[in-house]
């Protein structure tokens, strides 16, 4: 039997004016387990707390009930008080007789009766409380960043600057991501490479950063503070330490039929290649699917031409195992498939391109050396049509339901750059809505319309076809004048929807991080914890969480880094003891609890149990208290009642119900 003390607070007149505090004390004195009850003007005051401490010692109390304001207000205070008096802090329960009673009822008798009932419920609960102790786990002071685009680079730099080692895992041979492919950035029109490449170099040279390029995460186990990660370093058949990046081999490689991914396959590259001049690491890589040596065993020109002797056809994939305390997911995005939109002729006509392809065409290092040309005949275009929202904002199988967010701005950028450089080119933009929230964004778009005379047409394009002159005819509608529009043009640029990178589902599964129906990673809280995954220790950076532009990505990357640093700064993690716990003898191992756990905190082990003398190996659930947040979803899902929540156990809540319904 517990020895319970009940402390009724007046809260000045806040409670005492409506609740007869003396009557409450009298009423609870005879409740089971209660051996002390008193009231006081301000329980939360120094004196009030002193009174509680004294009573705990004097009456040898094993549990206390404070009838006062909301537990959201002073539960922590009174837990500390109890702890100072040598009582386990989780032996404290609060009866909320202010917000839930004295403040909302006027009739003193009614309010007093209710206060007594609320006190009884708390007493009934504390009778079943058990001392709980917070768990502890160690923190490995090293972070992993998955993805080496601008999001990953920024997060890595910020974590590294705070003094913690970081590994970046990037699946392609260089870091830089999509931003490296961009020509200019809105709304300032500065060159993407000029602001990105210094950051890439900084990351490469940072003493705390280690880059695993051409590598992928293979497996993740463990939990916050203690992740065990397997990284596959794919064979690039070039010794990273020896290669000087001179690019002699890439020029001499005779296998040149395959597309160059960096230029959106608008031109070709060799089987041995460096993605672009500023690549980090600036090391060649052999694409074994295209290399003649791997197909026929012959050739070997690259090997012969390499003065550093870096080419090594025998290189094998390597598995690296490393421990991490925190993981940042920065897997970014890709352009969604526009081949589904056959009305736009993307697959049929080389002059129908995506905006990313246009970026490469406009870029000085791109396939046309920065000259705007039609890809069909390499001639200068006279008219260009931009089509917005291709694959965004729809609800059919061809579309994404969301707005891709960046297209309105980059189209305004493209339109403006073209009009600036080639005033003879007419630019038309078919749009549904122009969405430009952001600092200096709408001004930017207005400049395109007002200063650069870009022709914005509210309406969509129905179809595009090649006309007799070999140009393209665009059939659309102008909704504002309710007119059919027919335009002859030289190029059509599709603002294709963006979508999370292909491998994100796999990575999310490994991390037990949740993803939404669009494959974007879910935040722990959409408003208050936007850079954390619900899985503790996993953080989100960049477009993997949702469409965003560069400045937003960089801010989120920084925010994620701060969260990582905050975690790594701790030597030990203290975990709330109010977690779920499976009773080994009752657990069926049915896996139902695992399915409803939002944190992946439950796994199963085969364990020998002693069930009243009968020894047998059973499959039973095991809760990792470092991961469990104590929501209780599993406790209700559990058919046998084996799963229970400490601090809010089945019996405790049942006892409260009992006390209230007496």
């Amino acid at each position, binding site marked *: 039997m517990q020895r319970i003390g009940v402390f009724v607070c007046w809260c000045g007149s806040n409670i005492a004016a409506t609740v007869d505090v003396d009557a409450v004390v009298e009423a609870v004195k005879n409740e089971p387990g209660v051996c002390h009850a008193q009231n006081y003007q301000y329980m939360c005051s120094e004196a009030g707390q002193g009174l509680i401490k004294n009573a705990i010692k004097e009456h040898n109390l094993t549990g206390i009930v404070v009838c006062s304001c909301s537990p*959201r207000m002073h539960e922590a205070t009174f837990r500390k008080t109890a702890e100072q008096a040598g009582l386990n802090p989780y032996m404290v329960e609060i009866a909320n007789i202010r917000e839930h009673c004295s403040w909302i009822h006027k009739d003193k008798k009614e309010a007093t009766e209710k206060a007594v009932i609320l006190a009884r419920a708390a007493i009934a609960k504390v009778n079943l409380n058990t001392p709980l102790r917070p768990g502890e786990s160690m923190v490995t002071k090293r972070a992993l960043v998955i993805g080496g685009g601008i999001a990953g680079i920024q997060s890595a730099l910020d974590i590294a600057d705070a003094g913690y080692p970081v590994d970046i895992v990037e699946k392609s041979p260089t870091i830089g991501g999509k931003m490296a492919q961009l020509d200019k950035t809105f709304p300032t029109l500065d060159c993407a490479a000029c602001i990105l490449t210094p950051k890439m170099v900084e990351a490469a040279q940072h003493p705390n950063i280690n880059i695993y390029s051409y590598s992928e995460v293979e497996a993740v186990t463990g939990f916050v503070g203690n992740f065990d990660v397997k990284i596959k370093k794919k064979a690039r058949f070039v010794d990273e330490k020896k290669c000087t990046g001179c690019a002699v081999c890439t020029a001499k490689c005779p296998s040149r039929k395959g597309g160059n991914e960096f230029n959106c396959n608008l031109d070709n590259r060799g089987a041995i290649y460096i993605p672009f001049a500023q690549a980090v690491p600036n090391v060649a890589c052999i694409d074994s699917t295209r290399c003649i040596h791997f197909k026929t065993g012959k050739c070997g020109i690259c090997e012969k031409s390499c003065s550093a002797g870096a080419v090594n056809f025998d290189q094998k994939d390597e598995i690296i195992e490393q421990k991490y305390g925190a993981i940042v997911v920065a897997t970014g995005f890709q352009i969604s498939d526009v081949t589904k939109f056959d009305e736009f002729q993307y697959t049929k006509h080389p002059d129908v391109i995506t905006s990313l392809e246009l970026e490469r065409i406009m870029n000085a290092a791109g396939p046309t050396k920065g000259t705007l040309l039609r890809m069909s005949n390499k001639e200068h275009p006279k008219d260009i049509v931009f089509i917005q929202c291709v694959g965004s904002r729809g609800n059919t199988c061809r579309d994404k339901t969301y707005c891709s967010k960046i297209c309105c701005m980059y189209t305004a950028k493209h339109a403006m750059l073209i009009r600036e450089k080639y005033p003879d080119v007419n630019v038309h933009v078919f749009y549904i809505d122009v969405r430009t929230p952001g600092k200096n964004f709408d001004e930017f778009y207005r400049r395109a319309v007002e200063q650069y005379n870009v022709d914005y047409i509210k309406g969509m394009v129905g179809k595009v076809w090649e006309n007799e002159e070999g140009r393209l005819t665009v059939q659309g509608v102008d909704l504002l004048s309710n007119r059919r529009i027919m335009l002859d043009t030289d190029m059509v640029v599709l603002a294709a929807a963006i979508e999370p990178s292909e491998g994100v589902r796999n990575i999310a599964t490994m991390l037990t991080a949740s993803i939404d129906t669009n494959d974007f990673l879910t935040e722990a809280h959409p408003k208050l914890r936007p850079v954390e995954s619900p899985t503790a220790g996993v953080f989100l950076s960049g477009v993997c969480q949702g469409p965003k532009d560069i400045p937003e990505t960089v801010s989120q990357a920084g925010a994620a880094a701060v969260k990582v640093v905050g975690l790594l700064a701790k030597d030990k993690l203290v975990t709330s003891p109010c977690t779920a716990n499976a009773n080994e003898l009752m657990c069926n191992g049915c896996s139902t609890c695992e399915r409803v756990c939002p944190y992946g905190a439950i796994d199963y082990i085969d364990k020998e149990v002693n069930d009243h003398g009968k020894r047998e190996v059973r499959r039973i659930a095991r809760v990792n208290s470092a991961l469990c947040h104590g929501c209780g*979803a599993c406790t209700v899902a559990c058919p046998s009642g084996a799963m229970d929540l400490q601090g*809010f156990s089945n019996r405790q809540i049942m006892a409260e119900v009992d006390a209230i319904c007496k």
Partner: protein
Amino acid sequence: MQVSENTENKEFKPLIVAFCCNWCSYAGADLAGTSRLSYPAEVKIIRVPCSCRVNPMFILKAFEKGADGVIMCGCHPGDCHYSTGNYYARRRMTLLFSMLDYLGIDRARTRVEWVSAAEGQKFSLVMNDFAKTVTELGENIKLGDLRCKKQQD
């Protein structure tokens, strides 16, 4: 808005148990208190970490022990502190209440409301309305007597 002034049934005061999740609805109830938005004293609140902690057995227990109405409040769908708890709770309560209805227990005696921490006003309105409904229904004896059909003489 005072339920106690119900003239028809003046002596009958229903017993209402409200399960509130710690992060939204309990805070909403606190806000109702801070804003002095009254609701009947018959409503007694039990704090749970999340609406998904509400075991149907708690609700059955309340009814069996003589509660006249049970209401469960949680974060609005999409706003759960634990991301997904209220989605599970929503399914569980829908099915449980449908079952109670199937057994002939007045469906107006059970309710689920989503109340955020900012919705003190809503909390008070909901509780007033629910108390009024349950008061009009009168005493609930049905569930406890479901297996107690008197033998025919």
